[in-house]
């Protein structure tokens, strides 16, 4: 993680590239859905690889909560240089991760401006979370919501098989 801004710029470019590609195909209705899934899938694969590297030297996790704590602290710190600010759970598989200053949203705005554009920039990170959890053995559904930039909440619902 030599220069942190490199990833931020790359991410912005990935998002705009994916949307430009779909625009040129002129498919306006489905455009939003497929772009978001594409970004999410990219994040998923990256998350899988990253978690393998980050957990190489850590001892095995005791339970689901331990895994979530690791993701909130070490994983988030390694990628976004800060921890998740708040983790809430209902102890039945649903977790809400709150980040008050999400690194990928800070360049956009610090209020309500550009709120509609925010989901595009969160798709990759949702995938990242999902990929990381999946490789640690927790299949989940990850969604994100923003009400006031740059704070955002990631909701993780762990699927019980």
């Amino acid at each position, binding site marked *: 993680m030599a220069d942190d801004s490199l990833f931020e710029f790359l991410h912005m470019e990935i998002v705009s590239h994916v949307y430009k590609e779909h625009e040129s195909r002129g498919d306006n209705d489905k455009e939003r859905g497929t772009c978001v899934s594409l970004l999410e899938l990219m994040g998923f694969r990256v998350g899988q690889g990253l978690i*393998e590297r980050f*957990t190489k030297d850590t001892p*095995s996790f005791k339970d689901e909560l331990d895994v979530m704590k690791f993701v909130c602290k070490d994983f988030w710190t390694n990628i976004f240089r800060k921890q998740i600010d708040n983790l809430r759970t209902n102890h039945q598989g649903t977790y809400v991760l709150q980040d008050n200053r999400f690194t990928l949203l800070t360049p956009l705005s610090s209020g309500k401006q550009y709120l509609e554009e925010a989901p595009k920039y969160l798709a990759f990170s949702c995938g990242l979370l999902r990929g990381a959890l999946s490789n640690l053995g927790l299949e989940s559904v990850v969604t994100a919501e923003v009400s006031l930039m740059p704070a955002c909440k990631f909701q993780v619902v762990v699927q019980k098989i």
Partner: protein
Amino acid sequence: MTCLCFLCVSRDYDELSSIMAVCIAVIAKENYPLYIRSVPTQNELKFHYTVHTSLDVVEEKISSVGKALADQRELYLGLLYPTEDYKVYGYVTNSKVKFVIVVDSSNTSLRDNEIRSMFRKLHNSFTDVMCNPFYIPGDPIQSKAFDSMVSAMMVQAC
């Protein structure tokens, strides 16, 4: 002074006769092999079978550690079980991928650290394979770099 020289010589000799595995396997979390390689002169099916049966022991170890108190839970599982000819060692990553190393029993100078370092090397190479964008997780491992790392750890077929 001559005594010091003798120590140096014996250490070099130990470096040369490092543990050589007879079979190395990487098993996915769904318990199918991602990579399995054994010394070709021997009956390969026997090794497949040995690795397969060792999975039961691995499962047992993983679940029993879960019931123990919150100790440092290691990734290295140690000696899984000895047969008359071979000793089988196991290691589990945090992503529940298992590594199994089968070593010849006649290799008496078995040191725990050597086996651990073999597993470390395996884990490092596996992490590199995982991070390769052309590798799809769940596929058999076809990386040449991984192959050469494993060859370096296996008994050289004469």
